[in-house]
């Protein structure tokens, strides 16, 4: 925490740790302007986890890379505001960004093999990250810190493994080493971009447990990017569902998973089977493919794939983009949809098909 205070200078106590406000990212390409992220807003508090869910190309990685200022200012047009502990990232100079990256905010990438240097020893890479932000530290201190971090993330025999190369580590161990590298400077914000996607279920469970333990220990804010709702359900406090570069549903995790109000979220929920589901549950896909971000559809971005578009009167879905506004369940639950009564549609039509057992529970609960 001391590093955070000295780095930001601002009082981290007031306001959220990370506040993304109206973020828009566009990439000019030979084919036209790619609308990668449009008017995205969210906040992350210290000690909380935000899960960002969506298909590939929904803008979840692009928006998070913008948080660390990783987009080339010559090729990306970024508008809006991103404040990490009160400090503005959009438009900040390289010196400021360097001070934030790896120190106040760190990122864990999906492909650990590609993110680790193949010719440098693991310990060397870890101590490098430490030395950059602790210029007064000696190499010996940095090495000791690297061993300590490897031990903390559960690498066996860290004194020996610290001198290994990344190819000598297994997939799970590489991911652990990356987490160690991300956390070596005690960042208060950790962005994990699909940290478990390439891993086996057992290893995924280990890594998720580790991330949660570390978060509790360091009280950091975490942004977890994933396409797996199961992962989100296990670790996130808040959920942001993204589609076509926009947030389409945003709220507390349990609220979103039990009372989703946006057909895209329904589609995501109904596309994944459950290990303990009723065998009568169906797997209902979302038809078609994600929209092209070169030329996003008019109106609601999801309308070309939405199975409930018929329930909205007139051409509303095809012509008017719905706002991300609180739904009938209170101000904490935002949704971007025209459907007049999403909750009853979900409970009477969707739930009985995807989780007949839960639908009965809901019925009994309502009667009782």
């Amino acid at each position, binding site marked *: 925490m001391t590093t955070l205070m000295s780095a930001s200078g601002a009082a981290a106590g007031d306001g959220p740790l990370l506040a993304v406000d109206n973020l828009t990212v566009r990439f000019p390409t030979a084919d036209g302007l790619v609308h990668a992220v449009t008017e995205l807003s969210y906040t992350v508090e210290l000690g909380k986890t935000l899960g960002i869910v969506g298909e590939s190309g929904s803008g979840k990685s692009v928006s998070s890379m913008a948080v660390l200022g990783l987009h080339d200012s010559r090729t990306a047009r970024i508008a809006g505001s991103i404040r990490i502990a009160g400090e503005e990232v959009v438009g900040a100079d390289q010196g400021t960004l360097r001070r934030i990256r790896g120190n106040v905010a760190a990122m864990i990438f999906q492909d650990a093999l590609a993110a680790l240097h193949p010719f440098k020893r693991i310990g060397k890479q870890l101590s490098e990250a430490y030395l950059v932000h602790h210029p007064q530290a000696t190499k010996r201190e940095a090495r000791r810190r690297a061993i300590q971090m490897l031990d903390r993330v559960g690498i066996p025999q860290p004194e020996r493994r610290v001198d290994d190369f990344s190819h000598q580590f297994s997939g799970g161990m590489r991911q652990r080493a990356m987490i160690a590298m991300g956390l070596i400077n005690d960042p208060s914000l950790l962005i994990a971009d699909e940290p478990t996607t390439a891993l*086996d279920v057992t290893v995924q*469970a280990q890594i998720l447990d580790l991330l949660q333990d570390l978060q509790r220990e360091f009280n950091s804010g975490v942004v977890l990017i994933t396409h797996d709702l*199961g992962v989100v*359900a296990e670790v996130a406090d808040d959920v942001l569902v993204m589609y076509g570069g926009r947030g389409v549903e945003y709220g507390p995790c349990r609220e979103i998973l039990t009372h989703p109000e946006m057909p895209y979220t329904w589609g995501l929920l109904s596309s994944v089977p459950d290990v303990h589901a009723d*065998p009568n*549950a169906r*797997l209902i896909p979302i*038809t078609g*493919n994600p929209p092209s971000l070169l030329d996003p559809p008019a109106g609601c971005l999801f309308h070309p794939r939405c199975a409930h578009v018929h329930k909205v009167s007139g051409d509303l879905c095809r012509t008017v983009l719905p706002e991300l506004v609180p739904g009938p369940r209170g101000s904490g639950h935002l949704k971007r949809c025209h459907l007049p009564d999403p909750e009853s549609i979900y409970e009477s039509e*969707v739930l009985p098909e995807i989780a007949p057992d839960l639908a009965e529970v809901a019925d009994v609960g309502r009667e009782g």
Partner: protein
Amino acid sequence: MSAQEPEDLEGTEFGPPAPATVVDPAAPPPEFEELVASTHTAAQLDPTAPPVLSVRDLKMHFPLKSPLVRRTVGLVLAVDGISFEVPAGGSLGLVGESGCGKSTTGQLITRLYKPTHGSMMFEGQDLATVSRKQMKPLRRDVQMIFQDPYSSLNPRHTVGAIVATPLRTHKVVPNNQVLSRVQELLEVVGLNPEHYNRYPNEFSGGQRQRIGIARALALQPKLLVADEPVSALDVSIQAQVVNLLQDLQKEFGIAYLFIAHDLAIVRHVCPEVAVMYLGKIVEIADRESLYEHAHHPYTQALLSAVPDVKQAAIGGRRERIRLTGDVPSPINPPSGCRFRTRCPIAQEICARHEPPLVQIGPRHKVACHFAGELGHHPAQPVTSRLLAEDGAGRSDEAARLVAEVATDVGYADSWFDLGSQTVVSGARKVGGESPVPGGNLPPET
């Protein structure tokens, strides 16, 4: 591989290219009721179906060569003695962590490798011993779908050429009908038949996987080995492909060997599932027995590691069994039970004796000395009578028991009851009725 393009696919007149989407973007999306009607519930078990493939004691040991003198210095025991059956028109799931040998098993069945040992009976012929020449006609009946839709399609061939190759190689249809058959196949898998002259890079991942499926379907196989067919796809696309595979099974009666690491998908597609660990099957059972009454600690750990949306959503999070460490090397696997190095309930006997795969229910086999439901693992090894571990040497009784519950390929009508430590028998249940877990049955002998 024919490098040149089939002539009748080239220079054919066609209109301006339509966008490469399955659904015409101008058309309104289907209503929710239509969408639901086009999907499937979990596949049901047909216990009377005869096996289309019987695999017995299959082994694949890859030699490990030293770098300089090309001498064999060891063996990678990728698949080490597995037996299972795939029912005709049904599905068997094969799950396990990476490196457990599940993909190698699929490649053995399609004879991309020649197995070291064992037999694979398919339509009265042993796929393990047939020559390349004898194998060729059999390849019509045994096809494969690969995991990565990007590397499994030749980028320089058009979709039409890719799907036409098996038709031409096996001379299924006369040359002048190849094109119409290709278009028919593309339509079956939900692609626009006019897109036959496009290249794979013009399609998305899910569409490419459909092309791979169309290629496999071209020969109307009886058995399809699907090696992680959906794991490279986005969640919403996964459900599309799973529903397509179920459609095709219903329509053409194709049997699947469905290899995947995602236990939830496997549960939906396969009424029977085998769990592999380090080249061995540790538990094989029907859906209900495996997912609700798993008896092997590894199966239980795998199941507890799967994130569960609906459970978490209603607040209850199951306690997770933490498996420490990684899968040991298949070059020098642990003695006795291979799972013992990571097993939470391992005891000394596990290092000495390899547990036999014992049938413990009507459709349930498990290989564990301490087999039992989660939290109810017995204190004494259940296999002691089978192994004569009481120090008195193997008695005739034990030998008889072993003979009776011998690890045959399919399921026997009698099984070893864990509660009473005796062999019980029961008529095989017909219909999708869930079997009673072995431990609760009254002993009948």
